């Protein structure tokens, strides 16, 4: 890389529940090498790991469990405390549970419950499109107090993070966490891979960890 840092190798967890292609392309665009992680041994060559997810919470939780990767990811994120980024349902899986699929268990690495947007006058659910995120903490090149627009496509969100975990807050009828971080674990509800230049800046910020 231009600044002489070691090459970033991003492992994208491939558990057949996500639009991996777009995430791969976006990380390559910001200069990373990407590989699809289907087995624990493939984590060894990674510097960063991404947990994507498109689908119902229960479907994704079941797929992740069936992939046999949960324990290796737990070791990566909790024991070794290496950088992990959850995207969309990949963020939600880091919670304890979701109203979408009450019988399914989340990983609980960030904790909390994923709730459906209540909706109401002028607030349609699903929440689809570009919405403004206010950064409550700095991340990458985004300074605390600034705002940027990102692309969202979801009906459920993380409403109750612990104090200080929210990096970016967003409003859609209720306030919810568009971006959280707890130590080495970062998660975004929006799609950075679909959010044009603002999204690519989030990915670069993650790679600089």
């Amino acid at each position, binding site marked *: 890389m231009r600044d002489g840092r070691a090459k970033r190798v991003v492992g994208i967890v491939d558990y057949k529940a996500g639009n991996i292609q777009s995430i791969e392309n976006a990380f390559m665009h910001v200069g990373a090498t990407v590989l699809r992680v289907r087995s624990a041994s493939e984590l060894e060559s990674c510097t960063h790991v991404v947990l994507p997810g498109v689908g119902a919470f229960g479907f994704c939780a079941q797929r992740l469990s069936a992939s046999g990767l949960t324990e290796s990811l737990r070791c990566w994120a909790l024991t070794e405390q290496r950088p992990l980024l959850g995207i969309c349902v990949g963020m939600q899986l880091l919670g304890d549970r979701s109203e979408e699929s009450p019988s399914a268990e989340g990983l609980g690495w960030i904790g909390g419950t994923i709730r459906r947007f209540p909706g109401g006058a002028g607030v349609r659910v699903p929440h689809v*499109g*570009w919405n403004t995120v206010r950064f409550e903490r700095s991340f990458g090149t985004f300074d605390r107090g600034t705002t940027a627009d990102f692309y969202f*496509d979801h009906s459920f969100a993380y409403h109750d993070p612990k104090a200080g975990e929210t990096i970016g807050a967003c409003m859609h009828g209720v306030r919810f966490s568009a971006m959280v971080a707890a130590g080495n674990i970062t998660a975004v509800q929006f799609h950075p891979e679909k959010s044009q230049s603002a999204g690519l800046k989030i990915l670069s910020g993650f790679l600089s960890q």
Partner: protein
Amino acid sequence: MTATLLKKRLIPKLLIKHRQMAGRERPVLVTTKRYSEVLDVGEPVSQAKIYEAQLADELIVLNIDGTPIAGDEVMLSLIERLASETFMPLAVGGGVRTVDDFALLLEHGADKVCVNTNAQLEPDLITAAADRFGAQCVVVSIDFRTEAAGAPKVLRCDLRQTTELDVERWAVGAALAGAGELLVTDADRDGTGSGLNIAVCKTVIDAVDIPVIVSGGCGRAEHFAEGFHLGGADAVAAGTFFCFRDQNLIQTRAHIRNAGIPIRMET
């Protein structure tokens, strides 16, 4: 406090037909007028890149040949190229028949899948797809025509015929079945530039609580503003309008912004 800062969306619509060119079958971008009078415009991927540079909020890609998507390598490789060469959200439709077709399109880089005829024939398809992929992934496309002195009726594109199904009734049915979004298009206004059908648009939007994309008839920037202001649309999609003018999205955006509608101006 503002309930939401969600922006209104401007969505170029790429209509695709399969054409035999230089001994190979290729996807060609076309425009239509009243769902007939097809005109070949050009190459879809380069057009999509122009739209991306002009801040399109999303893209809708529809195979209007209606050939089944399973096994349609021309469409699937087009979607793969669009997903790898642009960073925009992609909604893809045409020939989607099963839940596995949804999976196939998502694997090739689509973010959302549009269903039309097969959802009319089998509303359970909407429910099954929403259960597996989430409602946000399922866009039900409703084309309609208004016969003389009658209520607008849903169109069956494969048969080129209107049905007995009332537009509002089907919109409510699709939302109840689990659709996450509706794409509502007036076939009579398609490609005419005569303006959106605000009355039908408003009827549908008032009847459902999911986001609605309206389409068919945009010929001037004011038509988009009307769709948002008078119709209450969450998004306006257009094909012909964007195909034939340079820098149009940026000009159109400025016009919509000046009309007081919240819209994204930069990333």
